Structure formats: C-alpha cells, structure tokens
C-alpha cells in the first residue's frame, strides 16, 4: 500500500527552486534538550539545517544554541510554520510525540528512537496516513540531502553531493556505503535510513517511488539486511514497474545464525523467511547485482554508470 502524500519528499526537505526559503526549510526537534537531541541539534545546525525550534514539555521559554524551546508541538509549529520534525524522545514516549506532531501539521516525521514497540509504530504509521503525512523510521539514523541539510544523527563526512540515492535498513552501513561511494566519485542526492525495525514508516517500495521520476537521480543503492521480506517485495515491485535507473544492492548478515536477533529488532531469520539467500535470489531475478562487501558497491555501480 502506497501512502498518499501531499508533497514530494525533496520538496518538503528543501522546497522548490523559486521558494524564498529554498534549502532553508524550518525543522523542529522533538526532545531538543535531552543529551542525544541536543548533541545532534548542534551538529544538524552546523551542517546547514534550519533548526527553527525545539520541543521539550516543561522547558518552554528556554533557548538552546539560540533555538527557541516550546512546551508543545502546536506552539512550535505555530511559531515557525515548520512541516518537518526530527524526533529524539525515548521510545516509550514515541507514540504520543508522533501523534502530537501529526496533529500539529507536521508532514514529515523523522523518528530516530530505537526500541519502539511494534504496535506503537503501526499506530503512528496509520495516524500519519490519516493526516496525509509521512514517517521515516523509527530506528532510523535519519535523512540527509548532502551538502544541504540533514535531519538525524549521521556524521557529515561520508556524504558528498551527487546523483546517487542510498536507502538503508542500517545506520552505520548507510555511512559506510555512502563513504565508499563518495571515495569512488559517486556523490549522493539523498540518503535515508529505512529503519532497523520490523515495521518501517516508509518502506523500501515507497522510498523507490519517491525517486522514480526524478531527473536528478541517476541510480539507487539498497542496503538491506537479513530479516523480513522488504528486499524480496522490492525486487518484485521493481520488475513490475520496470524501474529504469541503475540499482545496486548490499545485504548484511548472510553468515548470521537463524532465529537470532542480530542487534536490530528486524534482523532475524525464521526458516527461509528473511534469509539472505531468499533476498539474493529475488535480486538476481530482478537483475540487481548484490555486493559482497560495502567496498564492492561502487565497483558494481561503476559497471552500470560513469561517476558524476
């Protein structure tokens, strides 16, 4: 099921070229005064993100790094007109914070918290859908438009502007693969973490839909891992829609034992369900090469494209 969304993701993040605030879209940080939220707010700001406000209940009226803090999302949205929120609250507060964000008019929620109960993720996703909004995550490192802005916890160094897109189920592997791409001359237009949980607010198929018609995207890298069938359903979908852009995949966890949760809540194999073999064979059927290690990704991409 594909979400009906009022706006294009790029448009939400950076705006239209003729917008006055093009590339300076305001962002609100939920949980700005926490240790995690505050550290990354500072880094986001340094990177160029327009962090216009923060929310921490009970801390309204304060400022952090010159950014006004509000008690509620309603007040923060009213003051800034923001439609993007980066969420850094502890997992037990995720659902309440997500509903508050969508109720206040947020159209893109980047949910960083790990360890969110599955039921809460499904509820938040359904809530977003009812409001015509999108959620990325939870358990995502966030989204970055290299050299423009980022909402999340990714370091700046691996990323460079270009025309490749990276969608990843893992945070550090997104950095690692992007870094390999950057070193090989393949810059990125957009990278985001799908999330390491069994339920993703924006899944791989929806992520591909976001970039399918964009002229500024030449290729897409999928960083998958064992568990679930997101890669398998994606492979079927790409065959079905006859996806034209170059696609290269990497799958982590092929040597992991069965029925063991490998760090991510979503990284677990039951029988053949979620196994690396199942994903490899589906990608092979879709004609998508799968790298054996992160450093092989640009080599495989090179064989399909010339560097930017």
């Amino acid at each position, binding site marked *: 099921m594909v979400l009906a969304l009022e706006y294009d993701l790029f448009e939400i993040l950076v705006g239209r070229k003729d917008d006055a605030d093009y590339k300076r879209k305001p962002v609100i940080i939920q949980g700005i005064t926490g240790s995690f939220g505050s550290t990354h707010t500072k880094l986001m700001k340094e990177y160029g993100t327009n962090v216009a406000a923060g929310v921490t209940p009970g801390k309204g009226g304060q400022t952090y790094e010159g950014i006004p803090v509000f008690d509620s999302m309603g007040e923060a949205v009213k003051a800034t007109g923001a439609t993007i929120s980066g969420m850094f609250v502890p997992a037990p507060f995720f659902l309440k914070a997500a509903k508050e964000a969508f109720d206040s008019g947020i159209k893109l929620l980047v949910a960083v918290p790990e360890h969110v109960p599955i039921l809460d993720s499904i509820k938040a996703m359904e809530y977003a859908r009812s409001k015509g909004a999108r959620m990325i995550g939870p358990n995502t490192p966030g989204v970055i438009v290299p050299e423009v802005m980022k909402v999340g916890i990714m370091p700046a160094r691996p990323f460079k502007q270009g025309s490749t897109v990276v969608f990843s189920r893992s945070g550090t592997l997104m950095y690692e693969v992007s870094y390999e791409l950057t070193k090989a001359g393949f810059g990125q237009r957009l990278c985001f973490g799908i999330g390491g949980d069994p339920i993703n607010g924006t899944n791989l198929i929806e992520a591909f839909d976001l970039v399918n018609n964009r002229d500024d995207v030449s290729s897409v890298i999928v960083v998958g891992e064992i568990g*679930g069938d997101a890669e398998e359903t994606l492979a079927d979908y790409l065959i079905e829609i006859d996806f034209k852009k170059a696609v290269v995949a990497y799958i982590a966890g092929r040597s992991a034992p069965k029925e063991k949760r490998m*760090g991510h809540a979503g990284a677990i194999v039951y029988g053949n369900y979620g196994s690396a073999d199942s994903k490899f064979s589906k990608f092979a059927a879709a004609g998508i090469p799968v790298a054996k290690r992160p450093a092989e990704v640009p080599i495989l991409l090179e064989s399909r494209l010339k560097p930017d």
Partner: protein
Amino acid sequence: MKLLEYQGKELFAEYGIPIPSASLAYSKDEALKDSTKFEFPVVLKSQLTVGGRGKAGAIIKCSNSSDLGLAFDVLSKKEVKGELPRGILIEEVVDKKSEIYLSIFLNRSRRCYSLIASAEGGVDIESVTNKVIFDIPLGGLLREQAQEAAAKLGLQDVSFEAFVDFAMRISTLVKEKEIELAEVNPIAILKDGSLIALDSKIIVDDNAMFRHPELRKYEHVSEIERQAGKSGFSLVELYGDIAIIGNGAGLVMSTVDMVTDRGGRAGCFLDFGGGATTQTIYEALKVISKIQQIRAILVNLFGGIVRTNLVAQAILDAYKNNLVNVPVYARITGAESEKAKAMLVGSKAKLYDTVEEAIEQVVRQVA
C-alpha cells in the same frame, strides 16, 4: 523473546485456550513422580527455543514408567541445534480425529497483523499450499473473519464454533501481550469435535516488554548476554574464536560476513550502538573478556564524532588492567587516527586503515 512451549501454553490457559493436561519436570525423579498423575501413554517433549524438535527426536511417546525413565535420560542429554532442553514437558496423549493449523503474526511487508489457517496441521506451513491467509484489523480479529476461516477449513457444528472461539482468544492474547507471532501447530480436533492446542510457538515483542512486567519471568539470558544488556549492547554469542565488535548492527553483521568469507570464525557479535565513547569501548572489551574461546578481537568502528585516540586509550587501559590479553585488530574511522596508531605501537593492538586489512590480519593470527 521466544517462549518455550510450556510458557506459551501457560498464556493459552490464561486466555481460556484449551491445552492438554501436562507437567514440567527438571529431573527424572520429578518426572516419575509427576507421571502418576497421568494415564499412560504420555508424551515427553524437550523444552527448546529452536524448531525442528520432532524431526530431531526430542519428542518421545512413553507407554509405561520404565519407558518414561529411559526417555527422560535420553531427552535431558539431547542437544538440538546446539541447545539443551530447559525442562521436559510430560503431557497426556489426546484422542484426536484430525489436526489443523492456526497462526496470527506481525506481517512485516503488509505492516499489519495477519492470520493463517490450514486444514493440514502438524506440518511445515511454508510447504502447505491449501491455506487461508488474510489481514486483521489492529483492534483484533473480527468474529466474521474467524467464521469465514472456519468455513474455508471445512469445519462444521461443534468444531466450527470451537475454532471461532479459539481464534478470537488467540487474537486477544496477541493484542494484549503484544506478540509478534502466535502459532498453534497443530490444533487437535477431538472425537467430540472440540479443539485443543497441542503445541505453542510464541514470540513476544521485546521492545514492548516495559508494558508487560508479568512476562519478565520468561526471560532467559546467559550471564554474558545479561552483562552486555546492562551496558546497552546487543550481543549474540557465536562459536568461533574472533570477537567482532563495532557500532551499529548492520556494520557488525557485515563484518561477521567478511570474516567468514576470509575463512575466520566469529566468536561473538557485539553492537555497542551509536555514540561510542572511551568508556563504551572499555565496557565492550570487559564483556568480551568473559567469553572463553576468544583468541582475537576485531573492532570495526565507523566513527562520526568519536576521536580515535580516545578509543586507542581505552584499548591500552584494558591491557593495562589485565582485562584482555588477546590481540586487538581495529579499524576506526575518525579524527586523529595517526596519533592513535602511534599510541598503539608496542602494544598487542593495531590500527588499520581499512576493515579488509584488519580482517586479513586477524584471520591470519588465529589460523
């Protein structure tokens, strides 16, 4: 968290789902004593989290107490896929007419809960072609849906009603306890048409455990896993001699794959998560030091804001305090890496520019 059969059946009983009378024993004496409560034959079932128990011979039918004693000895020593049983369940043998299959599970790609039912029970559901599958609302299974499934399974009269009731109760259990998978394979249909759960497979959402303290009693972690959990790490014990640690589950999985490709054997998977500090690395080495078979440690850290010289200091501290004495092969991207390399000269630890180089060296070391 995956529950053992008897634990799942405890939850079934709590939700009014019929189960055979049974008793859990940890010793032969206990088993013999408990068996007097039953009429023979009884069935002895190893309590394991791994699947494939029947095929592995970890379920034995016994027709008298001397059989039972022998079967108990066999089962208590029998490893299935590397796992020893945590108790043996003694269960009455029911007089069944046929078997069916039912599960309610989190359907990841459809991002909702789904139900699968089949008139063929006791077999691998993946291999069954004739099955009913449909999505259910977040609020739980609808009675009409349960009735439709019962009709498609060809159930009638008593069995039809019993199935509807059974499925509704499983749905309530899934919803209230936040369960990822509740599978009953098989459900026996008895001579009188009533239904009874012969097995249980329950996986609870670990992330929802804070709302279910009553399920904590089912948690079963090794001492090493407990220590790792206390430090906020994810740890999976493996069987090789190279400990693999890093920041991020995907990165560590990827490193395990690459080590395996080079002929190395991973001894553990340890993800210490984002925001690594000197203290984090030190704590991770402390956890690793408790795993006996480790002969070398491979660190793969994709640093964002971490300073590598601080990581190097943590490794040196761990050596100094005799926490570890095996060599450490590290790949750490981040600031000050030349300084970190220089600091480690003369120690058993070495820093590499790429993970491939570090892997080549660590595999050579333990070969």
